[in-house]
């Protein structure tokens, strides 16, 4: 009797990788940046992360169950957790719990599952959630804490933080306007609007060495994590280089034209969500361009849009809008940037 064997198709060996592994690596890479944020902005950063994670997993599980997908398999891909973290990190540290929840629900239910779930969503879910919140609740979305190190009195304990997030009650010692501590981009924007020059604005204590105090350290953390992602090839290098390169070039051009009205390029690169967005938001592969050249173009497009929105648009930062706009363009970019197939004549 001849032996009988299973028949499947080649290849029979696979690299030890999985969607879950890739997603987990993204989470690890966010840790340094998150640590810096938590140091400067307190417990709220971590509480937001926890709320977002729980809500995202619950929403994902419910939607998967409703769509008849295997729960364990899809929850194990960690994509919902990544979405949750990406959104939570973008929120103000004392964002009320319902704000976080709403953003997550929008991201997971509408932006992800209504479009077909993992791999089928044309827009970056975390950024859809963020933009919905920013447009609907502009006040809540712009009340940032003053970073640690500027005003010691504003350090909050975990209990105070939880109270603020869940019931909206601030500690009694806080001045009524304690939460208007705007980001450096906000300040630059308003002050420039008042006719001050960039150099004058930069003397404000909110500014640190290159950009916003505290922010610059978070940016450094995200840069470290992001470079690691690129190094292990979990993120395509073309997107962050394109985005930061594009942003730097256009910022330099305007800075050279009029240095008193336009912030220097290093300030733009180091401010707001530029680095975070370049390495963690724009690199979401599902919604980005998929060809090597296309990714570069996609990144440059985001960089330029970020600058335009920052300098001329209605919002202080524009990473979310820029990413969503380029999401729309991604399929077209792909179409025109197909690589030269082996054996095809060089054009």
């Amino acid at each position, binding site marked *: 009797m001849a032996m009988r064997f299973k028949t*499947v198709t*080649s290849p029979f060996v696979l690299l030890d990788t999985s969607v879950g592994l890739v997603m987990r690596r993204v989470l690890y890479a966010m840790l340094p940046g998150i640590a810096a944020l938590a140091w400067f902005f307190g417990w709220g950063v971590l509480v937001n992360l926890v709320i977002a994670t729980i809500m995202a997993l619950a929403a994902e599980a419910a939607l998967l169950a409703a769509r008849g997908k295997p729960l364990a398999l899809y929850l194990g891909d960690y994509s919902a957790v990544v979405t949750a973290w990406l959104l939570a990190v973008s929120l103000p540290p004392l964002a009320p719990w319902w704000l976080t929840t709403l953003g997550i629900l929008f991201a997971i239910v509408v932006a992800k599952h209504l479009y077909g779930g993992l791999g089928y969503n044309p827009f970056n879910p975390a950024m859809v959630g963020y933009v919905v919140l920013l447009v609907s609740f502009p006040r809540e979305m712009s009340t940032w804490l003053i970073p640690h190190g500027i005003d010691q009195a504003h350090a909050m304990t975990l209990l105070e933080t939880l109270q603020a997030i869940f019931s909206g009650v601030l500690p009694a010692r806080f001045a009524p306007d304690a939460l208007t501590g705007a980001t450096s981009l906000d300040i630059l924007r308003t002050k420039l609007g008042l006719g001050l020059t960039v150099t004058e604005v930069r003397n404000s204590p909110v500014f640190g060495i290159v950009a916003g105090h505290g922010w610059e350290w978070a940016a450094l953390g995200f840069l470290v994590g992001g470079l690691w992602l690129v190094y292990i090839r979990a993120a395509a290098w073309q997107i962050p280089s394109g985005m930061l390169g594009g942003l730097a070039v256009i910022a330099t051009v305007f800075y050279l034209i009029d240095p008193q009205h336009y912030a220097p390029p290093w300030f733009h690169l180091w401010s707001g969500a530029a680095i975070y967005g370049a390495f963690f938001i724009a690199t979401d592969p599902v919604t980005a361009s998929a060809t090597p050249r296309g990714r570069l173009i996609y990144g440059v497009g985001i960089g330029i849009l970020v600058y335009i929105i920052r300098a001329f648009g209605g919002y202080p930062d524009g990473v979310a809008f820029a990413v969503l706009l380029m999401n729309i363009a991604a399929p077209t970019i792909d179409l025109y940037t197909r690589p030269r197939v*082996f054996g095809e004549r060089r054009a």
Partner: protein
Amino acid sequence: MHPSDLRNAIRNAGVVGLGGAVFPSAVKMNLSGHCERLDHLILNGAECEPWMTCDDLIMRERAEEIVAGIHILAHLLNPQEVLIGIEDDKPEAIAAMRAACAGTGYAVRPVPTRYPSGGAKQLTKLLTNKEAPFKGRSTDIGVQCFNVATAYTLHRAVNCGEPVISRIVTVTGHVARPQNIDALLGTAFADLIAQCGGYLDGVERLIMGGPMMGFAMHTDAMPVTKATNCILAAGLGELTPELPVMPCTRCGDCVDVCPANLLPQQLYWHARAKEFDKAQDYHLFSCIECGCCSYVCPSHIPLVQYYRYAKNEIWAQEKEKQRAELARQRHQARMERLEREKQEREAKLRQKAPARPEPAIAGPEAGKPPIEAAIARARPRSETAVAESGERNG
């Protein structure tokens, strides 16, 4: 010997590409119409896949004979340069071939051991930096590539008169004594495995070919063919178990590894949606089915399986189209012929009418036309049947 006689002899000896494609070698030795003389004759001594060692072995042990085979190839193809590409993890094979090539002017070139450098197109690119056009032949760029084992059989065929009756097969994996065997064609896999001491415990799959591109056999009662370069009795430890398939996240890992510079995720998308024309727009047929994309895919999508499926569907459609076209042509030809015959009959009738008064002439010749006519009548009927069935299907 005249080149065409030599090619005939080679063809009759059954010399084919032993790398696995089993393309008749004699065809590749005919340059007529493509180029005057070859720039590069490439001998492929880069193993197609990991785990295979049959080419390594033949180069180590039969280098002289391989070089004798190369002489024949060089005689027929008149190349400017003969390059022998060997992966750099085979120092003994390189040394043996270098020694055998001494004084011949053939160049032994180590190439990096990086799958799929053993693919003919990839090796050509590595050695000459030329890319074979995707709609054409390698001779269009003045290159022809043969496996080293093929060169050996060529020598046996031409110089010893021995047709291809055996080949070297790597038997490896979960067997007691993995080894290379010079096996007669037709030997059952089971016999080779027995020769190697039988299976060890835990054999899960039997693969003909390598782990990347091979075919899983359902039984070991299969015979060795000229395409059997390797028999891999694979245990669970060596192979990846079947993993659940996730949706494509467009991560692009497949794009980074594709040696043909394709966009595997787009091919997959279109193949899955059965948009075969779009898949062809993305150069489906440039895919060499190397399996690199499936290997790296974090979503564990059996990409190659989709490509094979799409290719088969497209071929089936083409064949169907050709058949329909043939049926249409046949039908048209039949109608024309019927019309012609009718006219001929009428013309004959008109001619015969006045001749009726003299029937006495009818002799042996007169008996012939009715038979021919009957044959002619019978033939259209059978052709009609074909044409009609063709029409029904088309």
